[in-house]
């Protein structure tokens, strides 16, 4: 195939890549932050002795895992405001959805991490008078995070990839920003190719970091 590559257009619109990347990263980091907080709450609720809590948390996770993310995105953007009367911008609606979606996966990671800690650790804490939450915060989580960190970082890489779905709501993150200039320049090959490279450059260090952490902690535990 003969194609006359012209990367000048990419250079010309470098500011669009830059702004799009900032929005993509803003979505990803905000979602990571909220998903971790939500995931921690749901993860601890799933582990708790209070049955109502653990059952509610299980259903939360189940519903989120068994519906498509894209459907969650449009449902929360179009339906939720009508039902509860809260208006969110497309950006915040998307951040909310991704946070909720990933909190289900993070909750599982956190639950498994907590469950991996020997019960004797909390028995000792309990006899000494630590409350459930003190034991969680000071005894269990500081040990469990080593097991939780690699899969959490992996999830973060997924979040960056899926942030591109914000384009369906018209949020000017990377993908939607580039779509927009392609409409004017008709240079999809150059623009999409560089877009893929930009995503790779953002995601690769995260994925690489997750793998390093896995190896690091695997060695630590096998000793």
């Amino acid at each position, binding site marked *: 195939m003969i194609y006359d590559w012209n990367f000048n257009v990419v250079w010309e619109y470098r500011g669009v890549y830059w702004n799009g990347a900032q929005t993509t990263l803003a979505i990803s980091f905000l979602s990571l932050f909220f998903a971790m907080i939500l995931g921690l709450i749901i993860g601890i609720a799933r582990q708790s002795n209070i049955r109502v809590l653990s059952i509610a948390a299980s259903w939360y996770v189940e519903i989120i895992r068994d519906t498509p993310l894209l459907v969650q995105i449009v449902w929360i953007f179009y339906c939720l405001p009508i039902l509860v009367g809260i208006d969110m911008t497309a950006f915040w609606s998307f951040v909310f959805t991704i946070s909720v979606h990933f909190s289900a996966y993070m909750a599982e990671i956190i639950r498994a991490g907590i469950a991996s800690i*020997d019960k*004797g*650790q909390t*028995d*000792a*804490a*309990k*006899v*000494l*008078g*630590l409350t459930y939450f*003190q034991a969680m915060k*000071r*005894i269990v989580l*500081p*040990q469990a995070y080593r097991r939780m960190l690699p899969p959490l970082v992996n999830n973060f890489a997924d979040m960056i990839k899926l942030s591109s779905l914000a384009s369906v709501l018209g949020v000017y993150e990377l993908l939607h920003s580039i779509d927009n200039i392609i409409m004017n320049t008709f240079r999809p090959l150059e623009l999409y190719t560089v877009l893929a490279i930009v995503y790779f450059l953002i995601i690769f260090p995260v994925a690489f970091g997750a793998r390093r952490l896995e190896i690091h902690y695997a060695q630590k535990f096998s000793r």
Partner: protein
Amino acid sequence: MTGEPAVRTVDLCKRFGDLEVLRGVNLDVEPGGVLCVIGPSGSGKSTLLRCLAYLEEDFTGRIYLEGELLGRVERNGALEPVQGEALRRVQSKVGMVFQNFNLWPHKSALGNIIEALVVVKKVPLEEAEAVGDELLARVGLSDKRNDYPSRLSGGQQQRVAIARALAMRPRIMLFDEVTSALDPELVGEVLHVMKQLAEEGMTMLVVTHEMTFASRVANRVVFMDQGLIVEQGAPAQVLKNPSQARTKEFLSQVAHEEI
């Protein structure tokens, strides 16, 4: 509260599903007394101690610690569970040491000892460290102050665990087979600390297979089997001259193992 036993259980029962593990245990331990609990594996010894530490909350019957009901309050003749401060005040009378030490691996020896002082009792850090250093000296581990559990031998870990329990100034100490996980040459150093504690007048309940320790340090020995106290009395009587056939059988098995 003169004349109150330090520990009293009345018809203590505990079941896990269909399995009855404690089937009506009645026990008194006088203040300053050392009670050794012996019995075959699965007879409910650990469960008894775990009830006394309120690690098993869902028992029936009564537990009195220095005359106060543990985890229950009596209303119109019925017992109801209590939580919060009312529970904590009574529960804090006991300290417990476990077979597997259960030290926190991410904290140093000193860190393990002072954790509850700082978090639960809100003792200022410097003051807590002074208490911790004193306890480390008492169990002979001043030089291991900043070492993490993974760098300590089993005997050293268990002594740290004893110091950790003592930091909260318990009135009653529970020991659940605390030397069973140790290499034989490390057993002595732990028993030595326990013997000292007994001489200082601590009330102790000791589940153990160390018959020599039981005969020398205990002032009472209880033999348990299948969730019941089969026989109890002075060590010389229970260990040397048991009246029950099951006690005799158990002791002869233990004696064979020790040869």
